[in-house]
Structures are given as structure tokens and as C-alpha cells.
């Protein structure tokens, strides 16, 4: 039955649709769509989200008419998503920052004057020089969002060198992927999102947890999942009915933060019922490695890899793994008079207590269901999806590690239907040397002081708050914020407003008048992706190895520059341009002089040419197609760990993780060890009050974090989705108890930060009773953003600024909120 409510809503909808009128017309709509004129297609890489789809920009008479997916590209196969299509609206968004801006009035207000590039860059350089003269270049810090983090890392490192400060970081490390990446890495040696890919084309059985591929869509995963949907069984664990759950064969509304228990119980079943792939484990993992009292029995280094003993059942003695014929996985042995057991046996004993019945109490998933899934999974040689975003809980790292182990148990590693290692992983990441942060880095010092095991990575962006506000460990006074929407994406917004207020000088490089620009002293407008040439990037996410790039399709619409140009020009004003190119040369593996001369003749395109020459890439092919593929799927699948060693300390899949053992040795009371164990989420320590909920979040398929909410077309789609994407989801039963009806305004208050935000309630059946769900990325305060969806909540207010001691990540869902009627 269509209820009266629905009807009224529908009528109201029409009324608004009709009265809304036209706010913004990018061009004359009446203009014929088949207009003639010069048409060209220019290759580029979509920058509407980090998924790096290859695109062809269709330019007609000097104007971007449309954006298409690049046919046959290994990432997106000619497809792009809603955001990719709406990229046109980013370029021509009249809200864009059109010239450099210099502050004229109070911080916190939009009081700027337009300035020339010369003036703005010189002002910045003179500020930097002040710190140099003070002898404290390290008082300068830099934050980059996902865009610079994905594409310009070597350039930022070079720029930091030119500035003379060690204090720069890509925020996605702590905010987005580090725990997940380290979790997989602990087993496979790599694990960031461009490195892993579920083989949806050949999958038989997929378990997806803490991930929403169909909603937090990246086309590469979206098309693979969507187009192959009928070919495999899909099990989705999610506290709310996600877009991916909507495509699943089974949706399990798991209690937030407890996936680890589910995976441990799967291990329990698979191991106890002997459904594991003993051949894979014995050969390609260190499962047979002998342990004594939980520590490797004997380990030595050889050819850059760790070697160890296994018990060879064929020979009846302990030998080095690779020379064993039949390495034992189970049992207890005596070697050199010591009682030793294989790592697998240790794992078996460890998970013995993690029965499905045990997990049922924690996860709210019936024991029988867990058993059934574990058996089906093993029977079909299933795969647990790689995930992407994963800083949400204290146990995040261990959860993804558990996923890696479960995949290894059934041998679904880099084979058909399993978890693939991309070209980027196997041919690029493995070669890159891992760099430690300099010891005097504010991030590292801060994290070390707090006993974070991974402090040496220098990724704990939370440090900037203490450094700015409490001068702990030392002050940060000048800050560059590049392509990062600081006040929308950093936890605990109030604290960052305080910090930005306290800064001596802030430079923001952005394209839109986002909230944090209200605190900037100088704003530098960047060109959008279609307006710029870019360096050479390895193809990510795809079962292929190659390179692609961005080619400028149109001249910048406004007076904007490439961020690389800004960095070089500031360096030049500081007299440190050579430092910049030298550091860049290290990062790119290209001769510094060449980089510099090419840059000065061709701009950023010159850097690309220099890279292409160094990598032996056919430059003409690159420019015309936008990409070159060096190796296809056949070279990647069944490569590591079968033919080549993995970049783990042992070169094998690590059931016993040397990395985690090392981490554990760095802290006081580690809550993990080298195997795997249950760690409850922090939120489970508190009993929920009658108006309290766990909060989980995701993205909408047509928005990227907070950076697309001002895109007029995408904002319109959000408005059209009504409460579905704009509201917070509350289970109807709980809502009734609290007297909240659909569409009511509610106040959401964080139990931990005390900050609150208003929201609209979407009362539904799609979410657990103890949980609210929201799409984050809306609720900006900037009045200069004229297209943003109205009446949505500001989630960044509700997450406390915190960290876990293993990965240093933000634990963004370790938060509890109170809901009341507004």
C-alpha cells in the first residue's frame, strides 16, 4: 500500500521540484547537444575520488563537454561513476576559487582580497624565511588530503626538503588505510587499497566485511562486482543494510566492531574441521615455522630474507623451510631437546576457544550460520574481500590480518577467484624501500611519547593538534593544508578549529571555499585535473602493470596553477630549488638535472617526459591513449608468492608475523602478538544508555567525502535521495521508543567529545537497533559553498580525536552518540 505519508511526500517533492527553479546554469541548456565545432578527446585520470579511473575528456570548442571512461583500460574498462561524469561540474563550478587570496580580516571569517601569484607566493616565502632565520624550519607543517597523498607524495617530500622541515603527512594514512594496510601487510607484505583486488571475475564465494564496494564505489571494484554479480555468492557483514548488502545473497547485521570474532570463529571451524589447504600453507606460508614458547625457534638472515626451521615429516627432522619435503603443520615436536610446535599448531590452539558459539555472543550472528559460512567458504575456496577504509576500531589491524589468514587458510591468495596482488603491488611497491620518518619529526616524537608501536612511520596526524595547541613535542606555527578538507574530515572538529585559530600562518591549497579556508592567511587556487598535465603514475588497483597520466585538456578556466608549480616557485623564492629537485630525483628515480631542465622547458609535462624516458615508456602512446600497459593479468596471477617471494620478512605468507612481533616488542602491554587474537572494540566497554547508539558511517555512491558536496549535480542527486543519504538511519523500534518519527530533526551528541550536531532522522528497518548510520561528508558551514545539500549533519564533530597503540589510526567508529529530538 502506498501510505498517505508517501503520497504527501511525493506531492511535496513535486512542489519543491517545481518551485526550486534554476539556481545555476552551467551553460545554455537549450544549446543543441549535437553542436558541431572542433571535438577532441584528451586522456586524463579522474580525480573525483582516489580510485584513479582512466578517462577521456571530450572537449568541444575549448570547453569540456563530457568525460568518458577510457575503453579497455585495465582499471575501469571504459566505465566511470556518477562523480566521474559530474567532473565537468567541478571544472565549471562558479564557487571555485578563482585567484590567490590574502587575508584582510579576522580569522574565522571570509575576509580576503584577491592577489597576484607573485604577491601570494612571495608572502609565503617570506613567512617561511622568518622561520628559517629563527632557526626553526621544523615549525612548519604540511597536511595533504587523499589527492596529493595518492599522486604527489614524492613532490611533497621534495617540497618538505626545500622547506627544511620533516613535518608533513598525507592524512589518509591515519584517517583512512594504515591499520588495514598493516593488517594485510602483516601476512602478505603489502595491503594498501591499490595493491589488493578481489578477483570478482572468477570468484566463487565472496565475504565482504567493513566494506561497501557498491556504495563507496570505485569503478574498478564496482564494475567487477556488478558485471559479475550472478557468478558468485556474496555474503555481506554490515551493521546496516548497505548498497553492497542490497546485492548480497546474505546480509548479516553484525554488531559493530566485532568482525574479528567472526573471522576467528571461521578459522576455528576451518581448522578444526580440516577444511584448510594444507599444501598452500605448508609451501607458501610460514605456517610450518617452528615456535618455542610462542617465539621463532631459530631464525637467521639469508639473502635479505628471514630463514627458519620447519619439521620435515619426510625426513623426521627440522630443516630450513625451502629444503623440507613435507613440512609439518600440526603436532608437537622435539628438536635439539626443545619442545617446539609449528606456527599453525599455535594458531590452532589459539583459535580453539574462538568457537562459533563464542562468536555468536559477540557478533550477534548465529553460531550455526557462522559454521555454515565457514564450510561453504572453504568448499568454494572463497575469498574475504580486501577492504579499503579501515581505521574504525582498536581491533582494525587485527581484523584485516584475520581476513588475510582466512584467505591463506583456503589458499585464496593471488589465484583465480582469490585475492589478487595488483601490478602496483608486485612490480612497484616491492621495489620501493620503506622509509622511516626522521627522528625529529613531530609526528614520530608525538607517537613515540604515547607508546604507539608504529610511531616510526610518522603518520599520526593527530600530533598536529597537540603540536599547534600545546607545543607538544614542539610547536607547529605555520601550516600548509593541501587538498585536504581539514574541518570536515579530521576527528573532533572543535579541536581543529581551536588549532587553526592558534596558528601563526596558514596556507591552503584548494579549489573550493571549504570550511578550513576561513582560517587561512593565504589561499592558493589549484587547477582541476582536466586543466593540468601530470607526472607519470603506475596503474593502481588493476590486475595489470603499467603507467598512466593526465594530459591537459583545457587551459585553466581561472587564474590557477598546478600544485607542483606552486611548490617549485616557492622553493625558488627560498633559494632551495635545487634541494627540491634533488629530493624529487630520489623519490622518482630520475636524474635531478634532467628533471629541472625538462621542468623549465615544459613545466610539469617535462617531469613526465623525464620519467617516461627513465622507465622506457613509449611517450607518444602514453600521450595519445593516456596509458601504457607493460604486463597483463597473466604475469601477475600466480606470480607471488608462487614464483616470487612476497615482500614479507620471510618472503612467505606470514601466519606468524615478524612485523607484529616487532611491533609488540616496542610497547609496554601489547594487546596483540605475532599470531592473531581477539580484541574487543573499545565501545563494547560501555553499556549503551536508552538514547545511546554506536555510530557507523560510509559514503554515498555519488559523493566523495566532503569534496563533492558542492558539486551542483551531485548535490542534486543527494537532495533527490531524500533521507536515504541525507538523514541518519535509526531503527524504527528504537526511534519509536525515543518518540522520533521519520523526518524529525534530532540532535546527535557525542558521548566522548560532548560536541553535537543536528540531523534529520530516517527511521527505517535497515539498521541494527543499537546503531545509527550516516553518510559522512555533508554539513559544511562555509557560506561560500552555494550548492551543498541542506540540513545534513556534520559528522566530524562527533568522533573523538584518539589513536590506537598498534597502528596509530583514528579509531573513527570508537564513538557513542546520544540522540534526542531537536
Amino acid at each position: 500500500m502506498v501510505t498517505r505519508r508517501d503520497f504527501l511526500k511525493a506531492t511535496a517533492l513535486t512542489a519543491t521540484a517545481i518551485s526550486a527553479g534554476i539556481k545555476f546554469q552551467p551553460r545554455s541548456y537549450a544549446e543543441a547537444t549535437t553542436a558541431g565545432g572542433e571535438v577532441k578527446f584528451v586522456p586524463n585520470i579522474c580525480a573525483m575520488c582516489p580510485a584513479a579511473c582512466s578517462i577521456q575528456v571530450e572537449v568541444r570548442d575549448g570547453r569540456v563537454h563530457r568525460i568518458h571512461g577510457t575503453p579497455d583500460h585495465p582499471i575501469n574498462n571504459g566505465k566511470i561513476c556518477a562523480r566521474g561524469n559530474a567532473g565537468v561540474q567541478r571544472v565549471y563550478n562558479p564557487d571555485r576559487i578563482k585567484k590567490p587570496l590574502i587575508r584582510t580580516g579576522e580569522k574565522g571569517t571570509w575576509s580576503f582580497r584577491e592577489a597576484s601569484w607573485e604577491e601570494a607566493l612571495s608572502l609565503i616565502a617570506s613567512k617561511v624565511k622568518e622561520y628559517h632565520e629563527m632557526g626553526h624550519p621544523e615549525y612548519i607543517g604540511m597536511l595533504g588530503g587523499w589527492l596529493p597523498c595518492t599522486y604527489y607524495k614524492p613532490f611533497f617530500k621534495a617540497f618538505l626538503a626545500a622547506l627544511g622541515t620533516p613535518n608533513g603527512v598525507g592524512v589518509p594514512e591515519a584517517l583512512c588505510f594504515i591499520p588495514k594496510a598493516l593488517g594485510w601487510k602483516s601476512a602478505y607484505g603489502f595491503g594498501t587499497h591499490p595493491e589488493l583486488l578481489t578477483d570478482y571475475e572468477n570468484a566463487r564465494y565472496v565475504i565482504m566485511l567493513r566494506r561497501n564496494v557498491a556504495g563507496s564505489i570505485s569503478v574498478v571494484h564496482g564494475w567487477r562486482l556488478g558485471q559479475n554479480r550472478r557468478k558468485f555468492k556474496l555474503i555481506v557483514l554490515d551493521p546496516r543494510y548497505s548498497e553492497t548488502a542490497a546485492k548480497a545473497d546474505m546480509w548479516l547485521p553484525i554488531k559493530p566492531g566485532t568482525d574479528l570474532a567472526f573471522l576467528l570463529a571461521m578459522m576455528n571451524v576451518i581448522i578444526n574441521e580440516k577444511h584448510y589447504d594444507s599444501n598452500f600453507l605448508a609451501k607458501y606460508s610460514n605456517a610450518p615455522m617452528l615456535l618455542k614458547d610462542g617465539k621463532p625457534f631459530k631464525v637467521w638472515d639469508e639473502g635479505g630474507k628471514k630463514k627458519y626451521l620447519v619439521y620435515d615429516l619426510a625426513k623426521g627432522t627440522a630443516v630450513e623451510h625451502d629444503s623440507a619435503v613435507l613440512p609439518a603443520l600440526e603436532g608437537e615436536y622435539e628438536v635439539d631437546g626443545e619442545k617446539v610446535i609449528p606456527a599453525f599448531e599455535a594458531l590452532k590452539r589459539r583459535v580453539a576457544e574462538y568457537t562459533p558459539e563464542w562468536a555468536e555472543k559477540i557478533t550477534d550472528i548465529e553460531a550455526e550460520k557462522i559454521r555454515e559460512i565457514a564450510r561453504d567458504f572453504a568448499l568454494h575456496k572463497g575469498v574475504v574481500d580486501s577492504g579499503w577504509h579501515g581505521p574504525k576500531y582498536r581491533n582494525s589491524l587485527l581484523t584485516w590480518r584475520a581476513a588475510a589468514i582466512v584467505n591463506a587458510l583456503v589458499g585464496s591468495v593471488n589465484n583465480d577467484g582469490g585475492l589478487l596482488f595488483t601490478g602496483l603491488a608486485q612490480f612497484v611497491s616491492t621495489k620501493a624501500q620503506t622509509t622511516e620518518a626522521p627522528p625529529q619529526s613531530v609526528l614520530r616524537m608525538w607517537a613515540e611519547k604515547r607508546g604507539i608501536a608504529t610511531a616510526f612511520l610518522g603518520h599520526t596526524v593527530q600530533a598536529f593538534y597537540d603540536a599547534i595547541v600545546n607545543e607538544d613535542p614542539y610547536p607547529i606555527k605555520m601550516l600548509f593544508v593541501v587538498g585536504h578538507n581539514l574541518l570536515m574530515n579530521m576527528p573532533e572538529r572543535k579541536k581543529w578549529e581551536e588549532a587553526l585559530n592558534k596558528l601563526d600562518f596558514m596556507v591552503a591549497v584548494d579549489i573550493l571555499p571549504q570550511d578550513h579556508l576561513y582560517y587561512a592567511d593565504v589561499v592558493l587556487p589549484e587547477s582541476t585535473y582536466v586543466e593540468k598535465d601530470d607526472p607519470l603514475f603506475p596503474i593502481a588497483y588493476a590486475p595489470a602493470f603499467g603507467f598512466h597520466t593526465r594530459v591537459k585538456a583545457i587551459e585553466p578556466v581561472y587564474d590557477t596553477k598546478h600544485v607542483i608549480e606552486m611548490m617549485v616557485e616557492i622553493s625558488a623564492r627560498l633559494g632551495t630549488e635545487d634541494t627540491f629537485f634533488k629530493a624529487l630525483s630520489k623519490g622518482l628515480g630520475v636524474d635531478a638535472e634532467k628533471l629541472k631542465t625538462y621542468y623549465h622547458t615544459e613545466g610539469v609535462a617535462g617531469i613526465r617526459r623525464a620519467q617516461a624516458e627513465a622507465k622506457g615508456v613509449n611517450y607518444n602512446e602514453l600521450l595519445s591513449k593516456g596509458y601504457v600497459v607493460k604486463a597483463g593479468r597473466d604475469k601477475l596471477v600466480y606470480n607471488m608468492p608462487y614464483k616470487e617471494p612476497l615482500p614479507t620478512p620471510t618472503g612467505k605468507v606470514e601466519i606468524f608475523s615478524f612485523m607484529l612481533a616487532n611491533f609488540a616488542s616496542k610497547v609496554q602491554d601489547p594487546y596483540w602478538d605475532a599470531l592473531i587474537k581477539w580484541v574487543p572494540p573499545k565501545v563494547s566497554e560501555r553499556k549503551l544508555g536508552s538514547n545511546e547508539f554506536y555510530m557507523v558511517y560510509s559514503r554515498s555512491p555519488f559523493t566523495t567525502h566532503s569534496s563533492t558536496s558542492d558539486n551542483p549535480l551531485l548535490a542534486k542527486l543527494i537532495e533527490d535521495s531524500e533521507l536515504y543519504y541525507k538523514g541518519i538511519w535509526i531503527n524504527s523500534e528504537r526511534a519509536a521508543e525515543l518518540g522520533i518519527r521519520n523526518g524529525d530533526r534530532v540532535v546527535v551528541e557525542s558521548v566522548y567529545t560532548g560536541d553535537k550536531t543536528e540531523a534529520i532522522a530516517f527511521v527505517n528497518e535497515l539498521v541494527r537497533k543499537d546503531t545509527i548510520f550516516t553518510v559522512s561528508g555533508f554539513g559544511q558551514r562555509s557560506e561560500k559553498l552555494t550548492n551543498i545539500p541542506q540540513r545534513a549533519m556534520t559528522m566530524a564533530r562527533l568522533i573523538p580525536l584518539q589513536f590506537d597503540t598498534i597502528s596509530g589510526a583514528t579509531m573513527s567508529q570508537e564513538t557513542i552518540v546520544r540522540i534526542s529530538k531537536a
Partner: protein
Amino acid sequence: MARYGMVIDLEKCLGCEACVTACVEENNVPYETGLRTQVHRVVTGKFPNVSTMYMHRICQHCEHPGCVSVCPTGASYVNEDGIVLIDYELCIGCKYCMVACPYLARYIHPERHTPDKCTFCVHRVKEGKLPACVETCPANARIFGDLDDPSSEVAKLVAENRAIPIGAEYGTRPKVFYIRPR
């Protein structure tokens, strides 16, 4: 001479609305006012037995189009390939076609002051290209082709009865078909 039709596979559809945006960009659709195609979220069930389906609003290019039969001036017409189109020059803007379309396929174009709707991207189809929404769909959930060509995927899906029309009771004989999600 073809009989073009579309199949929308609601099993594959991810609700990502790439189709909607591709259509907007390709056809310069005044999205503030109206859209040529739209994705609705249809939510049913009781926790935890729920479902979300993505239903697509789009002109069905009916074989017995209500819009054409009521249109006084012949501005709404069916072209030789079975595509229902609007001749914007002949249209007087009486909106009779909008009232008479059972699928809510039309909206008023704010500059043309006439109705507008999906054209099956006839300008692309004539050049041998797929409609914009079909080309872009990450999941290949929109399939386009000639229903009269038995070897086309659309014709097969329809012949096998896997793709079925909606609102058949109106007797409009739509040429857009939907595959029911599980």
C-alpha cells in the same frame, strides 16, 4: 529501421546513478528542474529481512505511447526506429503528453518551455554509439539494442522472458524492460 529497446538489469544495478549523470552531461539536461532518467530507492521489508531495489524512471519508448496519441501538433512522435521523440519546434507546451504519460517520463525544460525526456540518445545511436547512460554504467546494468534483431542481447532477454515490462496493464507496450532482482 530498427526497433530499439533497453533492458535494465536490476540485479546488477548498484544504484550508483552514473547513468543519471552521464545523461545530464551528454544531453545538457537542466538537472535542477528535471531529469531524463532517475534512480529511485525502493525500500521494503522488516529488519533484518529487508531489500533495497533501484527502480529506474525513464521514458519507455512505448509502442502505444500515451504521449503521442494525445499530442495535438504531432510534436511528440515515433521515429522510424521506434524511438519516441519530441519536435521542440512543433511543441506548443500544452503538457497534455505529460499528463498522459503513465511513467512520469517527462519534465518541462526551463529554457525551451516544452517537455523534454529521454531520446534514447538518438544522436549517438545514429552515429553507431551506445546511449550515454549505457556506455557509462559500471555494472553493465543497462543494455541497449534492436529488439527486432533476434541476436541482440535485449531481444534475447526479452524473448526468454527474463526482462519484463512494468505497467503492462496500461497497454502502452513499453520498450524498456526490467530484470527483476533476486
